[in-house]
């Protein structure tokens, strides 16, 4: 490599590395984040069902993280996670985890197969632990203020004020370039002139490179 190219190569490596970091952040970013909480919903056992409604902002919803707590003890029952469309009585997802696998005051990820046409649809997820008993049950973190406008917390399927602490993810590519392409081509005259200019420069470089090689 010619010495004068090395600072440029260094600059390009740094630029690409920073771009990569941001691409990772964008790709792994949740579509909904409600991370505020100020109290727990109390122990979940028997027929008690705690849920949260929300509206998916992307297609391909595939993961919901819920902030759970164990009261700093090892609980032994099973915890069941359900997901259904808000206007349906049938669950699309049911996941069972052992309560002993749950960490205290941490988000637990419930992963499932992506739901393709989820965008703009209302969903409800709920958590139940019928086999648990007082003193041997987990709980969920909850924010008493209504901080998430797209839905609400539910106790035994009845809406209450406030929201559970949760994050929802989708597998939709957040690096979607369609917004940029639409914006760029709105100014058609500039977009076309710019592309022609780029093509002309690239053509010039290739032509000169070929001439240089052929001597």
């Amino acid at each position, binding site marked *: 490599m010619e010495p004068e190219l090395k*600072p440029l190569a*260094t*600059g390009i490596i740094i630029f690409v590395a920073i771009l990569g970091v941001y691409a990772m952040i964008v790709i792994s970013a949740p579509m909904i984040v409600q991370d505020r909480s100020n109290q727990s919903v109390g122990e979940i056992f028997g027929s008690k069902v705690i849920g949260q409604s929300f509206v998916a902002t992307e297609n391909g919803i595939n993961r919901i993280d819920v902030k759970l707590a164990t009261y700093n003890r090892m609980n032994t029952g099973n915890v069941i996670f359900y997901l259904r469309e808000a206007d349906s009585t049938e669950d699309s997802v049911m996941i069972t985890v052992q309560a002993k696998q749950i960490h205290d005051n941490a988000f637990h990820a419930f992963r499932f197969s992506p739901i393709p046409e989820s965008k703009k649809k209302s969903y409800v997820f709920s958590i139940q632990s019928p086999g648990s008993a007082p003193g041997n049950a987990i709980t969920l973190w909850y924010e008493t203020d209504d901080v998430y406008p797209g839905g609400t917390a539910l106790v035994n399927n009845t809406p209450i004020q406030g929201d559970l602490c949760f994050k929802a993810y989708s597998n939709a590519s957040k690096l979607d370039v369609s917004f940029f392409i639409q914006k760029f081509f709105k100014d058609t*005259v*500039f977009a076309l002139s*710019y592309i022609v200019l780029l093509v002309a420069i690239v053509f010039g470089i290739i032509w000169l490179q070929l001439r*240089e090689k052929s001597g």
Partner: protein
Amino acid sequence: METNNARLSTLIKIARYPVNFIPKAYRQSSVLHSLSKWFLVGLLIRVIFMPFAFHGDLISTYPRSYLLVFDGYLRYGNPHESFQALTLWIFSHVIPIQELLVWSGSVTVPDSFMLSVLKNTYIFRTVFLLKLPYLFFDILICLLLLYIFQTEVENGLRAFKFWILNPIIIFAVYIFGRYEVIPIFFILLCIYLLKENHLYFAAISLGIAIWSRYYALLFLPLFLIFYCRSWMEKVKIVAITVIPLLMYNAITYYYSGTSASMDFASSQFIDNLLGMNFEIGWIQTLYIFVIAYSFILLYVYYRKKGKNPLGDFTAYSLIVLLLMYATSIFHPQYFAWFIPFLAVFYGYTHDYSLIQLHCLQVVCFAFFTFYWQQALATLMFASIHPALIIPLPSLLHLIDHLYPGLTLLNIVRSVFSAVLLFMIAKIVLIQRSDPT
């Protein structure tokens, strides 16, 4: 068939027309190919960034040029503001760019206005066109570099490639979107005129550079030391150098009752230079940059003069700037100031270690920009997709998850200063071993 050949020949003549502007020594086929290829590579990188990246400063400096050209505010008649004003005047007749420049702030652009700018349909076209005068001066700088090495083709090509492919210039001018190439052009013009022994014109050119950016004033004492033999000549050069700034201040004083440069002594630039200091007791403070700068001036005044005053002027101007970066707070775009000197010095010396050190500087500089958080990273590209990019965290914030971000940046900043100081030592050694 003959008509086609005639057309082709006319096209080739038109395409080759810019060749008339470069020095004759570079018109030889193989040199010309190499020159053209690297020029196009540099141009391609510049053009790629031109419409899609800019700092809020681009939108906050152009309104001053807007006020100059459309409302007659002579206070905004600096060289860079005047050239920007000319750009606005030319483009205002064919495209709707003024609407993006009318806002009611005085220094910084309000967030609400910035958001409306980012969402504007014509934002890419506007930013591209606003940077065109910078590209114009950038190309003039390329030409000047070739003229400085008019007969030394190898050296000239080296300096040219260093400039056209330099990531700091690409960042400062085409990503950040600052006018640094305008004062740089006048400084390089000064160097070229010095080479041609046109001392008075060189002094005027330096004067215009000072008028545009005060930092150029740092080179005036070096000009006097290396090029003026008698005190009378020194007085003449100082007088000629300050003429542009004096005239400008006289005009602004006549029209508005205040001089445009009255705030120089209390400007942030001076505060930054005096930033590294320590108190020695009572009410006395020592300023590190002032001590080191004075030391350099005394050193060059008393050392044996080399056979190449241009090489000396370039080398010690470069040293002064490196010293400034090493010991003072500086805005990221200021880092472009030393690139033309390094290009010329590297062209003369061919010292590969300068390139290695410069690569280290590029790495440190990238970290250095993290101090400005989102403003110098994500937000510069926000026009591409505001809703996606604006909420992204800063790199400093991300580093904070692993290690205290500010501590890490300060460690890198210290290494950065060490690299800058080492380059000074390297340049002094090169100058001592090879005074030509």
